């Protein structure tokens, strides 16, 4: 009886693993870094999956991930073949997967910005350069792996103060994502924060920001950010010209409802070399090994 059961158990395990592997080969899977409101991720991105599926003629699936690093790992381990990365996570992912390439970016990503925001009780005023008075305040980044919420703001802080953020501020936190950064500074849990400008604008439009409590005190110079990256073996797995097809599908995405998931006005072509500045900054501040 028990032996019977064990046999069945093993058999079903083998069959399941087999079908899983087989099914996997035909499905094109993508993910996106969890950079803002993480609820209803599936509802938002499954619409994108349907769109891509129609355009590409293969089954397309979206899987949600909890962290930037998890998105990179999924890309590296071939659990996803396409991903909507940030500048830094894209660089990391493409370094780990030979032949992978950035194929598209948002129109806004050519010249992306970070906004430094402050609780109004700090009395900090908007300035043309990073206000020196932020020294000694409490400060929150976004996610540890974020370009606009970590890498670039840390770079500009180090440039302005010639010191590590932990030395400049009385307390340094990592909120986890951009929506959370805004909420924490707005509630006063942190006095100053660094946030992705698109998320700020989006939440401002949605009426989630109270200008009496929190405002922008500095806007960074522009840098390249988010990108769609695809694995180098995509053509081999899904047929010749597949990468080009994916790129076209992304560039032709015009439905505002789909684009609002990112949120971007439209997608434009991109290449790996566009992100050299991110790689350089990452190495300079020690977030990337040489």
């Amino acid at each position: 009886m028990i032996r019977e059961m064990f046999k069945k158990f093993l058999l079903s395990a083998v069959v399941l693993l087999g079908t899983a592997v087989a099914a996997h080969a035909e499905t094109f899977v993508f993910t996106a870094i969890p950079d803002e409101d993480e609820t209803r991720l599936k509802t938002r991105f499954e619409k994108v999956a349907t769109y891509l599926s129609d355009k590409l003629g293969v089954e397309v699936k979206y899987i949600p991930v909890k962290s930037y690093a998890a998105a990179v790992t999924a890309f590296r381990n071939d659990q996803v073949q396409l991903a909507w990365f940030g500048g830094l996570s894209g660089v990391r992912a493409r370094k780990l997967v030979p032949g992978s390439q950035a194929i598209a970016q948002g129109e806004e990503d050519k010249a992306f910005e970070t906004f430094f925001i402050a609780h109004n009780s700090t009395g900090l005023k908007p300035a043309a350069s990073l206000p020196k008075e932020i020294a000694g305040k409490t400060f929150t980044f976004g996610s540890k792996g974020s370009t606009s919420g970590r890498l670039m703001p840390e770079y500009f802080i180090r440039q302005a103060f010639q010191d590590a953020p932990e030395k400049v501020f009385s307390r340094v936190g990592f909120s986890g994502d951009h929506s959370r950064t805004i909420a924490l500074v707005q509630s006063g849990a942190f006095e100053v924060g660094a946030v992705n400008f698109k998320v700020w604008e989006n939440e401002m439009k949605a009426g989630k920001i109270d200008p009496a409590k929190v405002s922008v005190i500095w806007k960074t110079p522009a840098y390249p950010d988010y990108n769609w990256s695809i694995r180098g073996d995509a053509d081999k797995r899904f047929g010749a010209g597949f990468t080009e097809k994916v790129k076209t599908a992304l560039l032709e995405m015009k439905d505002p409802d789909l684009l609002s998931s990112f949120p971007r006005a439209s997608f434009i072509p991109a290449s790996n070399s566009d992100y050299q500045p991110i790689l350089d900054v990452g190495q300079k501040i020690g977030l990337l090994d040489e």
Partner: protein
Amino acid sequence: MTTSTAINGPSAAVPQRSPLLRASLGFFLLAVCLLLVADIEITTRDPWLELGRLALGIVTPDFFAVEDLAQALFNTIAFAIVGVVLGSSFGFVLALSFHHRAVRVFCAVIRAVHELFWGLIFLQVFGLTPLTAVLAIAIPYAGIFAKVFSEILEESDPAPLKSLPSGTGTISAFLYARLPDALSHFKTYTLYRLECALRSSAVLGFVGLPTIGFHLESAFAQGGYSEAAALLILFYVIIATIRVWARRQLVPFYILVSLIFLPWGGSISMSHVATFFTHDIVPYPLRVAETFDATTLSALWAWMTDLFAGQALPGIVSTVVLTQIALVGTGMLTLLFFPLISPKFFGTVGRNIGHVALVVIRSTPEYILTLILLLLWGPSMLPAIVALALHNGAIIGHLIGRHTETMGLRPDHAKGLNLYFYEVTPRIYPQFLAFLFYRWEVIMRETAILGILGITTLGFYIDSAFADLRFDRALFLIAITALLNLGIDALSRRIRARLRLKSRLDAV
């Protein structure tokens, strides 16, 4: 009932202090000193504002807001069951050879690493697959099961063994004389571990596995308290009904269902597994070195010392500070909590309320309690201290409260506060300290993982290393965390021996 002559009876101005009291005072004073230097600031401007929204969410749970709720609940339970089945099976095998020093050390090491850290490691190796979750639970649990099972076997009644005729084979002797007595203890302990595994499984969602923790984290992060309340309520129901659905006969069925319905999709590539172990976790200077020479060695030394001084050391200091304060906090709350469920102090109605309160507090993983308190009070050690003390205080308080049920009292015993201070508390005190010292190492393990939430314990630096995809650093820091745990475990054993505290571990 364990008694200690030193603290029994009225001490009519006896200047000589008992070792138990001295130890307690020592730990208490240390915690007070650490509290003075610890970061326990409330940083939010209006801590009560968020509490109001949280309370509103709790009374208006929204069971329909969560995507894939059924799958998340199923995953939570399935990971726990498969993890415990694997963990207890391997633990049992290891327990049989527990007299070998190598086995004991191996088990101590695998259980010194928290399941969340195992989860983070396996995420890199196997990705977001059920295998990651199951192994993250099964491996540390195997180490724990091995230790507890071997202790149970050791303590099992020797009488049946003596009555065996000479020449009985070792296996027969084990199966017919030793195992039957131990089996019921094994069952009780495994059921308790299943409850722990449900909590572990839920918390694994916080690092990305598809359990209810995944949705809880999102809900809390966005202030979706109605959604969070619904998830927590369902979680409490699963734990509260565990005796109803967790039956041994159903285990094969559960495993089969888990195998069929868990989302096994996604292949595991052996070459990635190999890369992880042979490349990713190799310290960076070694990985990029062409030859192994003096330059490489000095680079490796610099890498290690930088990592140790810059991250491990500050991490160790906060981990120890937080652990010691939380340990004493746990003790104080335990003494406050146990009367709530003790028949010596409350009637049936009062006790039932006490039971519900303690069950809710101890069923909530400390990780989630900390997250909630962080939302209310802002980032500092305070939320972690309170969460750890509440969770662990409720667990030990429950055990001590149950312990007082069978305690005999004189017909003319004192009542109320006098009974509490002069009779019951002194009598349970050795038992209480034993539980507390057993829990010490658990509290430290939990303290380390709370770093993932932003408190600068070792977990903070480990999480950062994973976020930077620097697995060499992550593994180095996890190894240091494990060593720290082993150290505390050894220290706790020595103190317990010195104070002659003895209690069955399977209750903790």
